[in-house]
């Protein structure tokens, strides 16, 4: 019954979204206040309906209602409760429902917090947001209904993919979607501004918090996914340049670019048309990502094997929205007159450079991702584009970005002087060179990767510190730091986080070492500076799996560091094995132990990896999002995002 109500609520939400698309848009055109006012209650109603619908699906999963096809295919009565809940979005239909739930949530929030937006702009934003909703409700209702029943329900379900039965991955999709779909509101703002025909500093200020929020969530979501891959997949890779990963990485890069260009709109009223374009592209790439993931065009070796009908539907949505918005952009962009005047050496120029690097690097990822498809269709060549290409083609842009960032962060608006900044950054530069030189001298190989990564890390972190330090003024009054706007703190923290991320990526890639061997029970062996002892291998029964669990003692210089229990699990219902690596996490290195198969001589395959600086990768992601959050909490956004709603009457009509 609840299931049917959920289905019904979803249909109602579709109808509400239709109304919300048409009425406020007409109202804004005709200047009819009553019609424009429909937007906000409609957005709220839409959100409540989808929330109910989503709740109904969660309910079906929690109560293990195997009369639902979706629950039958993705759940099992013996599954722990956490994974029953996360199973709701661990499949195509359920994750699409989560997609529209978040879409409706952002629409409703734009209504709730948009109190100080001009009436027409708000109406148009909500209408555009609802039109995206219409398309995706239609997609779910016509091609991917999560509420389909089975005529003859089975006794039990087929279990969720065991790889997804993991705390890290349980929360990875919601965060990722909050980011992906959060960009929709930037898109709506951009299209609404194009319909209005004007973009001003206030627009930049309204869009920035939404972009920031979406970017923070995307950062956390991608970071979580990367961490999950690291500990779950059994060899400690953290990034693979898989099409599905690239699908989330491209919007992240565009969101980062948008984040920075919106600052220029807000502070200097320049780069308007470009910022609008970025907002359209950022969400456009979210849609492309959705298309890549759902259609299976690129991820599968057997092209188009997945579900052509769904793929074509999403492709149509993609073309309609990005194409429509870009057409509107082409028609209206010339109306966006830039106002700010600035010299070649200025913060504005630095932000333009940032945008060029981020946008081009994202496009490089895009070209690499779809190249196999192009090559096959246009040149009849079946080829692969893998990590070696992306590492070579993408990294140089990040290198340049890292090099110029500390300058750009400190240079003044309008007209800056490089000399003075150079002098204050000189100590950092020397320090960074010293660290890189030390790393070069200490490492055994002759790879540049590690030292360069450390150099960039020190340069970025040091640059951020110098930036903050420079704000203390001539008197070096540290109390001034406490009074700095949170946005300034956020900037420095996020940039330092990027530096830490660089250190982690370079360190792990350059200096990782590995050992593969067959060990007998009780055998002791050395890996690098560590001594490992395989004490025992036992069979352990889990809630819905059987585990082969090893017990390994990790020691250094004769002292025990940790006892590790790597596992190999077998999920009988899904008939799938998973590896659970045991990791000793430390500040400067991880020791990563994996147990393999039993060999004929009674020994066990044991893999040991020493992974230097691995944690710095996720620490960097976390610090970047923390910086974003600090920036988001800046009071000027709380004001701009509508913490006060009293001044609505004072809003000029146009």
């Amino acid at each position, binding site marked *: 019954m609840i299931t049917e109500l959920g289905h019904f609520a979803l249909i109602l939400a579709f109808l509400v979204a239709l109304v919300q698309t048409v009425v406020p848009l007409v109202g804004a055109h005709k200047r009819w206040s009553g019609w424009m006012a429909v937007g906000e209650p409609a957005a709220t109603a839409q959100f409540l309906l989808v929330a109910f619908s989503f709740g109904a699906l969660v309910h079906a999963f929690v109560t293990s209602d195997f009369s639902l096809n979706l629950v039958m295919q*993705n759940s099992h009565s013996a599954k722990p409760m956490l994974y029953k809940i996360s199973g709701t979005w661990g499949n195509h239909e359920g994750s699409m429902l989560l997609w529209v739930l978040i879409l409706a949530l952002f629409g409703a929030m734009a209504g709730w917090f948009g109190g100080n937006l001009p009436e027409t702009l708000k109406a148009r934003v909500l209408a555009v947001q609802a039109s995206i909703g219409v398309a995706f409700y239609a997609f779910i209702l016509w091609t991917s209904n999560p509420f389909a029943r089975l005529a003859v329900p089975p006794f039990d379900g087929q279990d969720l993919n065991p*790889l997804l039965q993991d705390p890290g991955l349980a929360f990875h999709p919601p965060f990722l979607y909050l980011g992906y779909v959060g960009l929709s509101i930037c898109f709506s703002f951009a299209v609404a501004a194009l319909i209005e025909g004007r973009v*001003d500093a206030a627009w930049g200020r309204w869009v920035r918090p939404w972009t920031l929020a979406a970017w923070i969530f995307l950062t956390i979501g991608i970071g979580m996914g990367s961490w999950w*891959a690291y500990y779950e997949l059994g060899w400690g890779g953290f990034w693979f340049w898989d099409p599905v990963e690239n699908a989330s990485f491209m919007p992240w890069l565009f969101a980062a670019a948008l984040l920075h260009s919106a600052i220029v709109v807000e502070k200097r009223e320049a780069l308007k048309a470009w910022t609008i374009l970025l907002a359209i592209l950022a969400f456009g790439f979210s849609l492309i990502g959705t298309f890549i993931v759902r259609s299976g065009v690129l991820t599968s070796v057997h092209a188009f094997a997945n579900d052509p009908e769904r793929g074509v539907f999403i492709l149509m949505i993609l073309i309609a929205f990005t194409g429509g918005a870009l057409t509107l952009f082409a028609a209206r962009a010339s109306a966006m007159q830039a106002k700010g005047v600035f010299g070649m050496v200025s913060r504005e120029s630095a932000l333009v450079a940032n945008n060029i690097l981020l946008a081009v690097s994202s496009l490089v990822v895009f070209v690499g991702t779809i190249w196999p498809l192009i090559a096959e269709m246009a040149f009849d060549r079946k080829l692969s584009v*893998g*990590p070696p290409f992306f590492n070579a*083609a993408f990294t140089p842009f990040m290198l340049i970005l890292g090099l110029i960032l500390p300058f750009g962060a400190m240079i003044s608006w309008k007209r800056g002087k490089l000399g003075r900044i150079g002098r204050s950054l000189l100590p950092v530069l020397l320090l960074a060179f010293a660290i890189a030189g030390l790393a070069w001298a200490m490492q055994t190989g002759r790879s540049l990767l590690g030292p360069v990564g450390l150099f960039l890390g020190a340069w970025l972190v040091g640059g951020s510190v110098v930036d903050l330090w420079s704000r203390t003024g001539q008197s070096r009054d540290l109390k001034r730091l406490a009074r700095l706007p949170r946005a300034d703190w956020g900037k420095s923290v996020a940039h330092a986080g990027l530096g830490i991320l660089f250190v982690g990526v370079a360190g792990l890639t350059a200096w990782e070492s590995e050992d593969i061997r067959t060990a007998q029970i009780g055998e002791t062996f050395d890996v690098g500076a560590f001594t490992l002892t395989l004490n025992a291998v036992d069979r352990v029964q889990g809630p819905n799996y059987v585990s082969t669990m090893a017990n390994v003692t990790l020691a250094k210089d004769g002292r025990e560091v940790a006892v590790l229990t790597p596992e190999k699990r077998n999920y009988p219902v899904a008939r799938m094995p998973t*590896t659970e690596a045991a990791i000793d996490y430390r500040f400067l290195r991880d020791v990563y132990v994996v147990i393999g198969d039993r060999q004929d001589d009674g020994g066990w395959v044991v893999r040991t990896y020493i992974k230097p600086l691995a944690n710095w990768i996720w620490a960097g992601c976390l610090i970047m999002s923390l910086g974003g959050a600090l920036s988001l909490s800046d009071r000027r956004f709380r004001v701009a995002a509508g913490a006060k709603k009293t001044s609505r009457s004072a809003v000029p009509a146009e």
Partner: protein
Amino acid sequence: MRVARSFTLAAVFAASLTSTLPAVQPDEVLDDPALEARAREISEGLRCLVCRNESIDESNASLARDLRLLVRERLEAGDTDEEVVDFIVERYGEFVLLNPQADGWNWLLWGAGPLMGLIALGLGLGYLRGRSRAEAQAEAGLSDAEQARLRELLDGDSR
């Protein structure tokens, strides 16, 4: 299979389920560490044909194991790295290369980054020149309505 796998679907997973256990087995490892290091490096650039975008070094599929052994066989026979790769490409096609060859139309792929970078740089410089030479009058910028709006925002800010 990969990080963002969560939002791919059960159907997509099916193809990749075999590949969750680590790949290289102890009995495959060559006695000569230098040769083994070369084998690992070559393996990382070769695609496991039955997996989703995994190198044979990462994959647990039996075909990947065969290819790993083949690579080591050729190395022990005295082939250079290039000869080993050519040997495999000859049998399995260009698809096996994770690092696409820079030839023919693929120059477009490899050139895309630098090319787009240069174009963007040109456009950016053009824009910046325009901005730095723009009439100073633009500085007076805000219209009355915008001034009112700005004042309103700033008033809110000071509270």
